[in-house]
C-alpha cells in the first residue's frame, strides 16, 4: 500500500506531498487537481508495474518504508540501468559503495512485488451498456477501459470461473434491486457478449434499457471480482446513484480495500461519500492560483476540526464550510465573522 505520494510538475500540480490510507478520498472544488492526482498515481503505479514507460515528471510513492520514484528527488539516488529496465528508479538513501547494485536489485524486486498495476474507473453508462468482446483464455479479467467498456465480457468471465463469485455478485445486486432476479450475460455473436437482467416477473431487460443506477451498481459490485490490481482509482463514485445507494457502493469499495488488498483512492464531490469515511481517509484538494498550484490538506488538519467534527458528520462538515472556490472557510480559522442570514 502506498502510504505517501509526492508529485512535482505534473499537470496543474507544482509540488504536493500527501499521506494515503487503504481507502482514501480527495475532495475539493472543480478544477483543483483531484483528477490530476489520480492520473499521477495511475502513471506511477503503471510505470512501476512495467506497464507504462517512465516520463519526465517526478512522481514518488512510499510503501513499506521504501520509496519508488520516476524522477530525481532530493535525498534519492539517480537512475541505474537495471532500474530503468524495471520501469522506474529506486531510491534507497545512498547505499554503501559496492552494495548499491544489490540494494537496487532488492528494490526492483520490491516494486514488482508491490505493484500489480492500477485501474481508473469513471463509469459511463453508454459504454457499460454496449456488447463487449469475449475475453480469451488467460486474458485478464478487467474492463477494456476506465469508462466501463467490456463489462459484459468481464461478467461472463467471472461466471465462467465456476465458483461462487458470480452468485455473490448477483446476490448483492438483487438485494439492492429487489425486482432483479438474475444477471444474464448471453453470447450474442461469435465474439460478443451482452449484459441483461431478468426481473422477478420473467421480463428480460437488455443493458440498453437498464437504469443508470443499476448499471453503475453492477459495475461497482463486480469490481471486487476483477483481476486484482494494487491501486483502484475511482472518479466520482456517486454519479447516477440514489443517495441511499452511495453508502452501499462505499461498502463495496471498502471491502475491496480490506479483503482484496487493493488500495482504493477516490475523487468525489459528494458529502454522502465523505460521510462514509473516517477523518484520516479524507484530504482536501485546493488551488488558489496558477502560481501556487494544487495543495493537499488532510481534513483532520483543518482549523477547529475536532470541535467541528464533534458536531457534524464528515460530509456535513465539509459542506458546511466549503465555498466551492478555494474552500477558504474550511482551511482558515474564522476570526470574528458570523454567518449572516442567507
Amino acid at each position, binding site marked *: 500500500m502506498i502510504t505517501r505520494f509526492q508529485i512535482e510538475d505534473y499537470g496543474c500540480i507544482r509540488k504536493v506531498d500527501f499521506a494515503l490510507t487503504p481507502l482514501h478520498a480527495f475532495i475539493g472544488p472543480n478544477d483543483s487537481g483531484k483528477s490530476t492526482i489520480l492520473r499521477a498515481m495511475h502513471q506511477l503505479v503503471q510505470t512501476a508495474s512495467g506497464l507504462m514507460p517512465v516520463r519526465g515528471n517526478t512522481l514518488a510513492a512510499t510503501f513499506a518504508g521504501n520509496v519508488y520514484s520516476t524522477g530525481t528527488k532530493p535525498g534519492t539516488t539517480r537512475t541505474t540501468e537495471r532500474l530503468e529496465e524495471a520501469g522506474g528508479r529506486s531510491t534507497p538513501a545512498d547505499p554503501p559503495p559496492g552494495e548499491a547494485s544489490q540494494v537496487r536489485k532488492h528494490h526492483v524486486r520490491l516494486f514488482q512485488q508491490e505493484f500489480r498495476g492500477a485501474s481508473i474507473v469513471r463509469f459511463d453508462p453508454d459504454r457499460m451498456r454496449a456488447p463487449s468482446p469475449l475475453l480469451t483464455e488467460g486474458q485478464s479479467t478487467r474492463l477494456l477501459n476506465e469508462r466501463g467498456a467490456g463489462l459484459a465480457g468481464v461478467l461472463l468471465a467471472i461466471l465462467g470461473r465456476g465458483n461462487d463469485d458470480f452468485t455473490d455478485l448477483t446476490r448483492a445486486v438483487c438485494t439492492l434491486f429487489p425486482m432483479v432476479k438474475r444477471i444474464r450475460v448471453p453470447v450474442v455473436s461469435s465474439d460478443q457478449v451482452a449484459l441483461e437482467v431478468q426481473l422477478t416477473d420473467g421480463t428480460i431487460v437488455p443493458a440498453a434499457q437498464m437504469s443508470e443506477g443499476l448499471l453503475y451498481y453492477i459495475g461497482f459490485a463486480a469490481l471486487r471480482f476483477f483481476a486484482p490490481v494494487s491501486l483502484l482509482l475511482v472518479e466520482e463514485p456517486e454519479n447516477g446513484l440514489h443517495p441511499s445507494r452511495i453508502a452501499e457502493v462505499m461498502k463495496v469499495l471498502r471491502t475491496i480495500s480490506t479483503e482484496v488488498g487493493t488500495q482504493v483512492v477516490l475523487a468525489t464531490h459528494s458529502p454522502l461519500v465523505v460521510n462514509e469515511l473516517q477523518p484520516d481517509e479524507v484530504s482536501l484538494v485546493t488551488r488558489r492560483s496558477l502560481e501556487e498550484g494544487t495543495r493537499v490538506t488532510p481534513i483532520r488538519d483543518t482549523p*477547529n476540526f475536532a470541535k467541528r467534527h464533534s*458536531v457534524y458528520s464528515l460530509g456535513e462538515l465539509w459542506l458546511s464550510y466549503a465555498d466551492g472556490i478555494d474552500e477558504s472557510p474550511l482551511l482558515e480559522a474564522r476570526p470574528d465573522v*458570523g454567518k449572516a442570514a442567507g
Partner: protein
Amino acid sequence: MKILLAGEGPTELGGWFDEPPYRGDPPRLGVLVALLAHTGPAALTIVGAIIWKHIRKYRGGVRSAESRTVLGLALEASEAGADVLVFARDNDRDHRQEEIERGILEASERFPSLRIIGSAAVEDTEGWLLAIAGRLHSEAVPNSKAVVASELGLENTTQKAEFVKQMGLGGIPADARSLRRWIDRARAAFGPGGST
C-alpha cells in the same frame, strides 16, 4: 456582549433574516431582539444571524435533527466569537421541545463558555405573543397566527416586534412555559443587571 441570533424566519430575526445587501442599518426589529430589550444589557452587539434550515443535516445518527441543529448553531456562535446564542424554533405540534432541550444540554457541555438562550416556541412565536398579551393557555391555541392578527391586530414582523418591545414581560401567565423558560435563560445568561 456579542450575540448570534438564530430562527426560522423574519418574525424571529427581523431584518437579520435578509441578505446583507438588503439589510437595513439598523436591521428591522424582530421578536428575538425585542425580547432581548427586556432581558439583556443595553450594550449588545449582534454579530450575525442564521436561518434554522441553513444548518446542514444529512445523516441522522444518534441525535435528532433538532438537537443537531442546536449543536450546529452553538458551533457557529462559538466560531463567530459570540458570547451568547439566542434562538427560538416553532414547535409546530411536533416533538421538537424535547429534542431542542437535549440539544441545548449537549451544546452547553461542548461549548461551556457560550451562553445559550433558546427554546422551542410552543406552538409558535405567535403563541408567545399571546402569552405576552396575558392570554391563558397560549400554548394550546390552534392557529395562533390568525388569532394574533384578529385579536391583537398584529399582521407583520414590525408590528409583532414593536408589540413585544412595548409590552412588559410581567403579565405572562404561568402556563406559558416555553416562553418563561426562554426568559429564565436570558435572565440567567445576563444576570440581574440585564433584566428590566
